């Protein structure tokens, strides 16, 4: 009689633990899916940028034929970024490289007033600027999701469940802004 009572309590406790573990597990799965979804958002924007670049290069070429080096750098950086199939960090590095070369392309446009007045160029400029923004906003969103997942994977008690089912931490998508680190150079 008494033994049966304790057995029931034991069963109840076991059931509670199982329900709790299921809850933690589902929470982790939800976060992991969130990270994957956020990553696919970045991917959409990166592809959009790859698609816009050839058009832009063609338009600029019509006005600034002698800037071969800049065009080649942009085309090369684009191809490199497309070919990357490695980790998030590698992808981030290649994309940063592409951003830098694109900036030099837009800086070059400043020297050609005709180009700056071209409707097609202006539209492309707005599209690329907006795509850059979307990349950085989707990166924000991705990093926020990754931070949430990583906290759960590392913190007690969810780390036990995460270890049991092999949940890995997500990599952050870091940006490198060289000019943000160096002090501005002033020349007289």
């Amino acid at each position, binding site marked *: 009689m008494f033994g049966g009572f304790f057995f029931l309590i034991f069963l109840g406790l076991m059931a509670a633990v199982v329900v709790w573990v299921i809850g933690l597990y589902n929470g982790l799965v939800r976060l992991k899916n969130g990270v994957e979804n956020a990553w696919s958002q970045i991917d959409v924007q990166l592809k959009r940028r790859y698609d816009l670049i050839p058009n832009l290069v063609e338009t600029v070429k019509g006005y600034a034929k002698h800037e071969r080096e800049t065009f080649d750098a942009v085309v090369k950086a684009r191809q490199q970024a497309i070919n990357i199939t490695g980790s998030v960090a590698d992808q981030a590095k290649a994309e940063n490289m592409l951003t830098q070369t694109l900036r030099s392309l837009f800086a070059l446009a400043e020297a050609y007033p005709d180009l700056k007045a071209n409707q097609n160029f202006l539209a492309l400029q707005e599209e690329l*600027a907006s795509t850059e923004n*979307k990349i950085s*906003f989707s990166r924000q969103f991705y990093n926020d999701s990754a931070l949430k997942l990583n906290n759960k994977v590392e913190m007690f008690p969810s780390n036990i469940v995460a270890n049991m089912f092999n949940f890995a931490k997500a990599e952050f998508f870091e940006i490198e802004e060289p000019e943000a680190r160096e002090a501005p150079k002033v020349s007289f």
Partner: protein
Amino acid sequence: MFELIRANNRRAAVLVAAMAALLFVTGYAVGEVLAPGGGLLGTAVALVVWLGMTATSWFAGDKIVLGLSRARKIEKKDHPVLWNVVEEMCVASGLAKMPDVYIIDEDAPNAFATGRDKDHAAVAVTAGLLETLTRDELQGVVAHELAHVNNRDVLYMTLVGVMLGSIVVLADVGTRVLWYGGGRRRTSSSSDRGGSGALIAVVAIVLMIAAPIVAQLMYFAISRRREYLADACGAVYTRYPEGLAGALEKIAGSTTPLHVATRATAPMYIVNPLRSLKGGMSALARTHPPTEERVRILRSLAGGPLSMQRYESAFRQVTGRAVGVVPAGSLAALEEVAARREPTPDSRSRTERVRETTDALWQLQRFAFLACACGTTLKVPPVYRGRTIPCPHCDTPLTSPAAGD
């Protein structure tokens, strides 16, 4: 973020329940005043009125509001900058479906969001807003509006607004009948009922007069808090509080009246379009927090790390109030993020922004844009469809495409 929505929902549920109670009590009072013993019938009428209005606003509320505001739906080609900014903020806020985008042909800068839920939402901005604001400021305004969508403010403001409307209608009917036709009936019946009947009648009349005022104050209180919350979320989405701060300053600084705004739609706008320009409004009757205060809170966040917690402490510091605006559950839930310091360069001058916006409005009115080889662009009204017009500068004949193109 989920914490924020949940806490928001709980508060909203309490408010909706309180409003519903007030509505039924008003219905009872009106019934009792019109015919002694008719209280329950009055409550039933109130319920029917409310259900009818809620159903209407659930299925067509956004269309009614957009129609009243004479807003026109745009495509990407009509105004690429606005479209892109909305897309950017969707990405930043993690909204899965992009809301519909509308432009209102008015010179006063302002904006609002409406809709049922995250999948049925719309953002409307005035032409004046597009002409006045830089890209960063526009981003701030759109972020604020998408925060309303994300926090489900649009649904609750609509539901609560409809209940407020029902209470006003019921109380109005009650007072009118009492004033013009109820006199005889009331005197004959109160002599039958004696003291307690008279007391009920007096209480009912007081309720009928007070209910709309109380309901309106409740509505204002919740709408003020939600404006602050949307400001906080908007700053976090854009990572640039100065954008929204600058926009609020420009919108509040404009003296152009917004003709399409009514008392019913005013609380939806980012800055109250019916604000008196002298600013002599009592704090309780405000639908929006004072704009200077919102700007000061946002400016005190500039450049530093951003989070709901930071906004909360900035709010307390600026207003000197002990009670904050951010629901407690969401304070710890959101991590801190770094803010952007530099504005993004916007090469468009005011003239270019005005041209962009006017072009968008003309396109919406189905004007044809004819480019001439001499560099002139003719904007031809739809009545000239299929006809040939000489270019005013070089006399080259230009043909407007036939309708349907």
